[in-house]
């Protein structure tokens, strides 16, 4: 049968089992939208801004592990995708972006709405294609999906000129869609690839010899869906485990062996542990500067095992003693064949002691704080929810206080740190997970960057709860100005903002405002009852709050700043007799250690 390029494109997406396209129409994609008009089995989601479409595809991908798809017209449509593509690229997220292009005959002639989007996105895509003939379209799309999801995942862009999507050629998806993609020059290590035994044995030996080991787990373990393997390694060896911002959920953060996030705003105990460790086992993590600070002063006493699927990550920042190139899940399975059980050690007790000395803590003085709000959400929505965030202080509080239980539950822009990501990513996640509640922790600054996507949520009846942590300020920037620029607060004041409650109502959603913990509890209860519309909770907190602990950029743990009122806060909690979160954790931990020591658990025979 003769099909147009546009119809072929949809056939290809079908072959890739695509369920959703997040997109926005325009001249250069008219044939594609004409084909979409008749398409019943793939849902097209009409966004309000193409950047929103890219973040939705990204949120879709991060909350499922599948490839997200977005679509935009040529020129401004395509350039509006750029921030979203770069966001996905920095965090290795599988995504296919499809853009319309001007007719092949006028490419390069400054035609109406022409932008060289393959040129523009060269440095922010894993690969991209400009398809010049309808005959080449299916192959390009097959390669795009293959590249996006294999090896180190990433966004791939396919640019389709108008005539290429309009021309008709003979095409039969069953027969003509390349089922197997072969790109001779592309040979990623994948699941199931052989791992050199020598390296595994060396790693196992280092683990057996180490006195003070720490597991440092990153986004690669999430991308590899390797929670089971990470947990098995941790349990068998009783090695305490810290995750990066993107590794959250690679181990259940309520697991007794989890010590939270490390790095600039990581827990003091995770950072102390890494700093004093004699063996750091990096699993799908890339020694980002927000983790290492000054790399010359990072984990200087430690030998390093580095497991990563991308050979270029090995030795990029830190030279490992044992490099292992491969997929986390596969490598850990193989490694587990050589790793001997280890007992609970005095070193573990030392880390627990640090945890007791430097707990994550905030005032219980009747005021509403972001930490409280996030703790409540973690409590109320628990394992079943998905949390997305924007970028700023609220993101860091969410990272510290939200306990991620599994991969794909935590969705945040780490590498690019894109304000405006949270809401559209939440909408994308909501489409992918209709059975789950999606909560976006946003800031009053970030929220105003992509507010229009509330409309998308309303139109499609998606319940996304956005908690706007409202400090009337670009808080994260303000914090740096306070600390490092002598409190010269330059252009960070957001006193002038819309009324967020009225704003969401104007978009057809529901709004609540909370200024005290009690009001917040009520808002959450009310929000939980809404299931078919977006909800915004304006969560008003003091402007002066700062994120602690903090290791200033490019520095080391010696420069770590902790809350000055830490001792006071700990004393207050004890005096109150109130339940302080660590006491719960401590109980769980104690039971776990007893179990381990009695030989009942942690060490599969």
């Amino acid at each position, binding site marked *: 049968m003769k099909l147009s390029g546009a119809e072929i494109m949809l056939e290809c997406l079908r072959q890739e089992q695509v369920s959703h396209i997040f997109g926005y129409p325009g001249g250069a994609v008219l044939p594609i939208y004409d084909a979409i008009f008749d398409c019943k089995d793939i849902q097209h989601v009409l966004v309000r801004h193409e950047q929103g479409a890219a973040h939705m595809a990204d949120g879709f991908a991060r909350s499922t592990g599948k490839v997200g798809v977005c679509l935009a017209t040529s020129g401004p449509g395509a350039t509006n995708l750029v921030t979203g593509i770069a966001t996905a690229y920095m965090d290795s997220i599988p995504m296919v972006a499809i853009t319309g292009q001007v007719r092949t005959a006028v490419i390069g002639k400054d035609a109406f709405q022409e932008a060289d989007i*393959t040129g523009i996105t060269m*440095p922010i895509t894993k690969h991209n294609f*400009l398809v010049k003939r309808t005959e080449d379209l299916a192959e390009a799309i097959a390669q795009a999906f293959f*590249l996006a999801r294999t090896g180190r995942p990433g966004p791939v862009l396919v640019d389709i000129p108008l005539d290429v999507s309009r021309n008709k050629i003979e095409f039969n998806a069953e027969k003509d869609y390349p089922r197997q993609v072969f790109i001779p*020059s592309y040979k990623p290590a994948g699941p199931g690839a052989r791992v050199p035994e020598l390296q595994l044995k060396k790693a196992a030996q280092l683990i057996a010899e180490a006195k003070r080991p720490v597991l440092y787990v990153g986004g690669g373990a999430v991308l590899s869906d390797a929670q089971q393997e990470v947990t098995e390694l941790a349990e068998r060896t009783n090695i305490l485990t810290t995750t990066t911002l993107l590794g959250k959920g690679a181990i259940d953060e309520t697991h007794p062996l989890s010590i939270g996030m490390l790095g600039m705003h990581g827990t003091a105990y995770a950072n102390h542990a890494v700093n004093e460790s004699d063996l750091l086992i990096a699993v799908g993590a890339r020694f980002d500067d927000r983790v290492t600070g000054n790399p010359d002063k990072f984990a200087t006493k430690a030998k390093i095992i580095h497991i990563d699927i991308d050979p*270029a990550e*090995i*030795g990029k920042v830190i030279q490992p003693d044992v490099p292992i190139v491969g997929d986390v899940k596969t490598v850990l399975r193989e490694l587990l064949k050589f790793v001997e059980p280890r007992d609970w050690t005095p070193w573990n007790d030392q880390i627990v002691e640090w945890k007791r000395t430097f707990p994550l803590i905030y005032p219980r003085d009747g005021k509403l704080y972001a930490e409280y709000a996030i703790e409540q959400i973690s409590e109320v929505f628990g394992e079943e929810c998905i949390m997305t965030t924007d970028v700023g202080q609220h993101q860091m509080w969410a990272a510290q206080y939200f306990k991620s239980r599994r991969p794909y539950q935590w969705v945040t822009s780490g590498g690019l740190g894109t304000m405006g990501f949270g809401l559209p990513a939440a909408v994308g996640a909501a489409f992918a997970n209709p059975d789950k509640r999606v909560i976006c922790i946003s800031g009053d600054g970030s929220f105003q960057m992509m507010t229009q996507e509330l409309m998308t949520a309303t139109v499609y009846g998606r319940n996304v709860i956005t908690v706007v942590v409202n400090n009337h300020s670009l808080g994260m920037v303000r914090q740096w100005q306070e600390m490092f620029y002598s409190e010269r607060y330059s252009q960070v004041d957001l006193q002038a903002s819309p009324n967020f409650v009225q704003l969401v109502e104007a978009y057809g959603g529901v709004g609540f405002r909370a200024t005290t913990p009690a009001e917040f509890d009520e808002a959450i209860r009310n929000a939980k009852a809404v299931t078919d519309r977006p909800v915004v909770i304006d969560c008003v907190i003091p402007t002066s709050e700062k994120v602690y602990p903090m290791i200033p950029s490019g520095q080391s743990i010696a420069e770590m700043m902790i809350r000055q009122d830490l001792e006071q806060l700990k004393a207050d909690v004890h005096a109150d007799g109130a339940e302080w979160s660590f006491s719960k954790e401590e109980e769980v931990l104690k039971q776990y250690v007893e179990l381990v020591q009695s030989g009942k658990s942690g060490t599969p025979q």
Partner: protein
Amino acid sequence: MAQLQQQHTITVLVENHPGVLARTAGLFARRGFNIESLSVSVTDKPEISRMTIVVGGDHRVLEQITKQLNKLVEVIKVVDYTETAAVEREMALIKVNAEANVRTEIMQIVDIFRGRIIDMSDKTFIIEVTGSTDKLDKITDLLAAYGIRELVRTGVIAMARGAKTANRAGRDVD
């Protein structure tokens, strides 16, 4: 970090696709690697192009360059000639002032360097000379005394000595 800045000659085999040069050269700019010279040409196989790139940096920089190049989907193979016996050649065209009174002197220099005079006017010569980068630097220095009007160099191309090849299926040199 006062690390020794070394020069490395690498050969990159790439799929002969439009945009592949931009992709490869762009990588160097983006990641802050220095290109000293770059030459691109066809190979015996029309679907493959060969780039020879001279880069500066210590061995860790070179390792990153090689790994990052290998990540480009269209890069088939990267060969580093630093530690290998390889032939490296470059060609220069030099337009030099050559009034009658200095012509013999210049011709002697050209002779010593096994160059050729390929164009002559009443005031100038164009000299063609092929050799290592060093050799071209030397003759350029010598000719500078007469006044160089224009200079162009091809950039280095390289090939391993002996039977080894950098072909897709060939055995790696490194």
